């Protein structure tokens, strides 16, 4: 059973994101980048499936700039067997990524595609769902537990009311949530081994996918600074302010 794990290169979660001066986007030059944390969890799950003897091969895929190779090297060090980079400098929106992943999936024939529920840069939470729809596969989103059993996979989902468990027919797409597992630390021997694992580079054209953005970004700006709070002398004033100023109670 092959497992495909898409991984995205994003601004590191420790970095304080800044908007570019011209308002066209977020500053990424000279900013520390790393693997989207949700993708790390997806990859960890894939490695556990392999260690449990359920998966036979793990393929990490990334779509984006050449430097995404670094992210793929990390994926290989975590435990992917080989990597595919669909390389482009163009802006990629979720639908384009979903289509590229479809093209790769059709080549590779994975049984499961395990991916992050969203990327921490744009927080779209769309690619997994779009991918499953385009493939005509079952989908289990926001997984906090994944159990593969024969030609089925049971996915426990984190939903508003609590947990929901669905049983999907394979092949299926699964997007993972934070509580699924705790990713391991990369070991030194695995970093060394990763250097020798295959990393294939493809062009979107060669996959026959049109990646032209469908949505135009007009402007990106910083969220308004939070105004300083005020101290109120007593509960009565608080209630008054909530009624008359904030107008949140009646």
């Amino acid at each position, binding site marked *: 059973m092959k497992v495909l794990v898409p991984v995205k290169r994003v601004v590191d979660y*420790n970095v304080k994101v800044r908007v570019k001066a011209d308002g066209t986007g977020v500053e990424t030059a000279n900013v520390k980048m790393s693997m989207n944390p949700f993708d790390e969890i997806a990859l960890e799950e894939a490695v556990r499936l392999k260690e449990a003897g359920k998966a036979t091969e793990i393929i990490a895929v990334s779509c984006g700039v050449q430097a995404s190779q670094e992210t793929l090297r990390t994926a290989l060090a975590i435990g992917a067997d080989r990597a595919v980079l669909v390389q482009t400098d163009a802006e990629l929106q979720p639908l384009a990524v979903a289509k590229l992943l479809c093209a790769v999936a059709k080549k590779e024939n994975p049984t499961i595609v395990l991916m992050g529920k969203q990327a921490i840069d744009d927080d779209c939470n769309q690619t997994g769902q779009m991918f499953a729809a385009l493939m005509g596969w079952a989908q289990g989103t926001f997984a906090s537990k994944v159990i593969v059993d024969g030609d089925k996979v049971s996915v426990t989902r984190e939903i508003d009311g609590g947990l929901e468990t669905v049983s999907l027919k394979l092949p299926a797409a699964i997007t993972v949530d934070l509580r699924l597992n705790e990713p391991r630390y990369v070991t*030194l021997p695995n970093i*060394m081994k990763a250097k020798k694992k295959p990393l294939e580079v493809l062009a979107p054209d060669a996959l026959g996918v049109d990646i032209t953005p469908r949505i135009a970004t007009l402007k990106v700006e910083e969220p308004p600074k939070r105004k300083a709070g005020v101290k109120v002398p007593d509960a009565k004033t608080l209630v008054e302010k909530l009624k008359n100023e904030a107008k949140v109670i009646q």
Partner: protein
Amino acid sequence: MPDYTAPIRDMTFVIDELVGMDSISRLPGCEETTSDLVTQILEECGRFSSEVLAPLNQPGDREGSSFDNGKVTTPAGFKEAYLQFIQGGWNALQFPAEFGGQGLPRIVSTPVTEMCKSANMSFALCPLLTGGAIEALLLRGAEEIKRMFLPKMVEGAWTGTMNLTEPQAGSDLALIKTRAVPATDPEFGSHYRLFGQKIFITYGEHDLAENIIHLVLARTPEAPEGVKGISLFIVPKFIVNKDGSLGKRNDVQCASIEHKMGIHASPTAVMLFGEKDGAVGYLVGEENRGLEYMFIMMNAARFAVGLEGVAISERAYQRALAYAKERIQSRDVAGSDKSVPIIRHPDVRRMLMSMKAHTEAMRALQYVVAASMDIARLHPDRDERRRHQAFVDFMIPVVKGWNTETGIEMASIGIQVHGGMGFIEETGAAQYLRDARIATIYEGTTGIQANDLVGRKLAREGGVTAKVVIGTIRAVETELAQAGNSALTAIGESLGRGTSALAECAEWITGNYKADIRAVHAGAVPFLKLTGIVCGGWQMARAALVARKKLDAIRKGGDGDAAFYEAKIGTALFYADHVLSQAGGLRDVVVRGARGVMALAEEQF
């Protein structure tokens, strides 16, 4: 919460742009150690250090290691972290593949070790000592001994110790009394029985690993007096059976551990050998050559302790910087409506810059020496190897002495930035100073390093290597003068004055060593400091030159982080004005200061 983020940007700057990673990747056996691989290794180790080791630093200090009836328990979490550390393969990084290591060069192991030490100096001492013991076995161990011990030690499943010090033998190891008597018990093969007491043994006993391999200096019955009569032995806590399994408990016990000023989590043990029928020990190399072997290993051990100075400075700086941005106190001297974050006050800036500049200078010097250690070991050309070895030998006492002394100073400034809170343990700033304090003492005090520098490394060879170093610095000065940039010119002038002071002192020392050796030794530590300051300045000046070139390229449309390079030049300028400027004063101390040092007769004290 005092956290730590590995300074990967500055580390890779030094590795790639100051040392030049290709000068290492070109060495036989290092072909695969490319810059991108090194960065990946640093990132993963940085993550492990910040997330696993750093959070244990302060609790480890509070709890400390504890002793009960011969057993030592390390603080909560240490055992699990150690297991993760060895499972991650970090212990094996620089050791030969033959014994399960990755065989990576020092230019990689140095930043990796720096991270572990910054995150948790007490923790990092355990692998440091294991590393020392491994080096000794690699150097002189018999094949059988190597096969028996090295794979487990390289993995980290067994740890190592260095048993040198005795109550009457600290700086002067010639006074060692522990005895080793040849024995014939067929059960243990060719062996000795050891009897004696060792003190101050780091990780002499602990609960992190299933076996502890002690390297012990001792005298055989017929050994000559003094330094020529000391041999090196290996004494395992548990005897290792032929099949590699653990056998009998050896006759070596931990009698107690010390209550100390710092590194509380690192147990410092009193070890008793041969309370019953003698501890079974195996000779390493030949009899009576133990100290000689120690001297060969000394470079690595002293280098590693020097790195503690860099590591503590970095951690103290990060803590102080975070506080300075948060703490609101006093208005801006140039006027402000309200109180401002203290980072705006010129004096706080000065303190932060001093920490930043010293840390970067020390790091650059340390890594440049690391690279020379690699070249001295691996370069195919003999002359090239010799040239780098001479540089390493000259720099080791400087890196050990200056970096650790500076580490204490920086940790102290870190406290000052915090004001009253720095003195309060909760902040964590005080721990860095307490921990840093040991580094100028073990592996040879600063006084011993300075003796080594002025004696063996300078006077004995007539100042040959010093002259080569000075010549190299002069070339950098010329480059700075020709750059046609006001900051670089100023740095060059300051470096020039420093180098002149260094040259003058080196000449004075070589000239007076025979005639007035006391006078030379009276100025040995100030000379060591002067050498450190000037060599640190040399690296900062080189960094400024690199940064200037990079900025010019960026201005012409090239890629790169302009803010980083601008900061490098600013930091180098600060170093030139505030640190290199001390060189003249130190020169006066070295060439004139002896008369005051020896002015009083012993009875006058």
